């Protein structure tokens, strides 16, 4: 019962956050001194043509009415124009992109597999490599292995993703001709090609994020391994492996889980730079294009989706805490 109440409370909070984000995004775009309809006006853009486009898109209405129509569309759907050429956006309608001729929902659904492929794969790589090297580094503190891992980690933390991505393309694509320089092939079309196209983005993201996890895990492990209960566990005659994994790593992972949840949630909302560098049409690339072309409906719909992922990730992290740390479960 306590858990059900906790979940209901969190869901209500999530809805309030999402509504506030949608309102703020709408207001920001409305305040911009530019007119999105002008980009769909044609050439030459006569005042008559502009008025037609504004009317059709609903941009001739005040911003609060546009916002209300947007919210109503989520629960009741929307129709733009009339007659045989009318554009229908079915429930739940998160807006319609007149520049891409499709609903925002369809855009997100079609782009999400690309971003998810990048994010989940990269997250798996950086989690395994980052945590593994962090543990190895902590257990061999002061050794050449420790210094080597931490040197690489500093390079990873310091390097911007576009630089790592471009260097990876230069080396693996243009010099060794081992991997494609960009693009995306769906897993269903060709699993090997899917893997080949994703290898460099995964490596790039994992190199950067894995470095943070390695440093964090190392620090946590060093702290935890010095605790009294570790000494007690050893005194009880447990094997070193059991001491490290069950008693050391499990406790050291708590802050790692927090960051991992937020990182993965953020990345699922679009790996903007990585997608651009590797010419992949995921959610990040969609957002950048929408901002450049003032595609308001896409920006608002996408922002809501990305915010939803972050909020959801936070919620998931809270639940996972219970699994990792029994003390948390007792408090929920």
């Amino acid at each position, binding site marked *: 019962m306590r858990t059900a109440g906790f979940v209901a409370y969190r869901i209500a909070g999530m809805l309030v956050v999402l509504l506030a984000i949608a309102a703020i995004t709408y207001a920001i775009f409305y305040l*911009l*001194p*530019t*007119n999105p309809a*002008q*980009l*769909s*006006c*044609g*050439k*030459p*853009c*006569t*005042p*008559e*043509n*502009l008025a*037609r*486009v504004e*009317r*059709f898109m609903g941009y001739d209405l005040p911003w609060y009415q546009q916002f209300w129509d947007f919210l109503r569309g989520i629960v009741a759907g929307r129709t*733009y*124009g*009339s*007659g*045989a*050429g*009318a*554009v229908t956006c079915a429930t739940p309608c998160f807006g319609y992109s007149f*520049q*891409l*001729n499709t609903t925002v929902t369809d855009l997100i659904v*079609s*782009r999400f597999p690309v971003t998810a492929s990048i994010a989940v794969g990269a997250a798996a790589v950086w989690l395994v490599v980052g945590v593994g090297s962090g543990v190895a580094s902590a257990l061999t503190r002061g050794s050449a292995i420790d210094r080597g891992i931490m040197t690489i980690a500093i390079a990873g933390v310091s390097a911007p993703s576009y630089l790592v991505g*471009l260097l990876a*393309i*230069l080396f693996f694509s*243009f010099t060794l*001709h081992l991997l494609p*320089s*960009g*693009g*995306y092939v769906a897993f269903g079309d060709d699993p090997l090609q899917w893997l080949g196209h994703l290898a460099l983005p995964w490596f790039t993201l994992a190199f950067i994020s894995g470095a943070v996890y390695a440093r964090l895990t190392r620090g946590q492990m060093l702290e935890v391994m010095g605790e009294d209960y570790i000494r007690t566990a050893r005194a009880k005659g447990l094997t070193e492996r059991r001491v490290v994994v069950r008693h050391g790593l499990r406790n050291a992972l708590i802050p790692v889980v927090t960051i991992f949840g937020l990182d993965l949630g953020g990345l699922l909302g679009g790996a903007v730079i990585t997608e*651009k*560098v*590797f*010419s*992949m*049409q995921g959610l990040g*690339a969609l957002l950048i*294009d929408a901002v450049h072309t*003032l595609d308001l409906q896409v920006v608002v719909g996408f922002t809501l989706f990305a915010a939803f992922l972050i909020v959801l990730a936070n919620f998931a992290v809270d639940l996972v805490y219970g699994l990792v740390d029994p003390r948390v479960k007792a408090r929920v």
Partner: protein
Amino acid sequence: MKNLTRAGIIAIAATLLITGCSSTTGAAGTAVTNKGGTLTILTPSTKIDLDPAKSQNLAITTLGLIERRLTTWDIRAGRPATVVPDLATTTGTPSDGGKTWTFTLKDGLKFADGSAITSADIKYGVERSFSDELSGGLSYHKSLLVGGADYHGPYSGSALASIETPSPKSIVFHLTGAYGDWPWIASMPAFSPVPQAKDNPATYGQDPVASGPYKVASNKQGTALTLTRNTYWSAKSDTVRVAGPDSVVFRMSQDPSTAAQSLISDAGDTKAAFGAAFLGAAQLAQVNRDPAAKARLATSQAGPLSYLALNTQRGALKNLDVRKALEYAVDKKAYLIASGGAAAGETATTLITPGIAGRQAYDLYPAGADGDVKKAKSLLAKAGQSSGLSLTLLVLNDATSLAKAQAIQQGVQRAGITVTIAPEDENSFYSDATATDANYDLALYSWQPDFPSANSNIQPLFASSEIGDGRNNVARYSNPEVDALIAMATAEVDQKAAQALWAKADKRIMQDAPVVPLSYAKQSFLRGSKVKNFFVASFPAYPNYLTLSLAK
């Protein structure tokens, strides 16, 4: 450019001698054409909408491969662009003093589904471009056709009475006034045939019914568009398309730097590829350091105009002598260096650009390569502005534009004119430059005409009707004498006579010095080693997709 084309022809001829493979003479007569292979086009575009009503495509690029129009452009290296018949037998027959234009379709024209192309399909294609849901395309015809202002397309069941189809092979357009450049207007995407039975405005742009040499095989937005041969297209009826490759693949969402790097390395399938985006200054420098890549570079002849617009309705700039002083004070050499040097353009002195038929070269304000400061100062003194003239310069907020603006700023500073640079992001810049209420003295602007006629160089930029409201008379120039000249040239149906009138308007406008012509821009594109007959003319400063073929 000529040498590059010639080299391509020699290479193909040599290959033919060795392999003994079949070939045909290109329909456009520009080169020997190999048949076969897959041509790949690397484009940064994340979407390719093939709906003719929504398109601003040039006649010689993507849509030109799939959709034919009533007329089209014959673009060849080293020659001004000309308008030629495409689906029609002629470029149109004027009557009623140029207010009515009649076209007759060629025999045996078919869509990719085997059905006949009729004049009703052209009429429907033009009508649907008036629909509110299909906005965004080239729309010159909308204000020229009688009744166009109040027409909202065929989806509500109404037709546009000013387009008549007396027979399946003839179509007649009734205009609100005489318009000599209607043959150019009929070359725009909206004049492609669209069969009404196959039209769904929400999806037509994904897979239109082809009338050109290629049809859509697959169209995955953001990833790739693949075209294959339309077997119902007849080379005999087409004088501009050679249809060399068996298939054409547009690889979308390509990062320009990565695409350029792929083309420089010329490995794998990039040998049969070219970049749709022109090279930036950094990529150009990289190509110029690599002799093998440099040999595969095509640079346009000097083309689109970049200019400094002087707001003729504001403060001291209302005075002709002040504007003339700016003509002399600007350092065009420094401007060109800031633009990227000789590879990026040539110094401009006229409004009609090279490559446009009827252009007459002249220079009303000869000032040497870097300006005539002495002359500028004397004109300022004559205008009573010897010191203290201070002007704002509206400019795009990117590194190249800012460097150009600084070149202008430093140039006019020599004559005692202080310029404050006001950078703005792209959307704000164009909104402010074309707004009804102007808040700038100077603006750094450029113009690529939508069709290769002097009309498109002059009317949108200098007619009084084009001031504010999103229109492009950024100098806010208004002269009844010039308006009358523009009206006369617009109505003239004789091309030679019209060209003479446009050339006269060009000089007359420059006598009032509303703009300082700065440069005719050049654009460079890179191809793979197997792409043949790859050239970029003066106008448009983009490769002609219709005449390409691949080496065996």
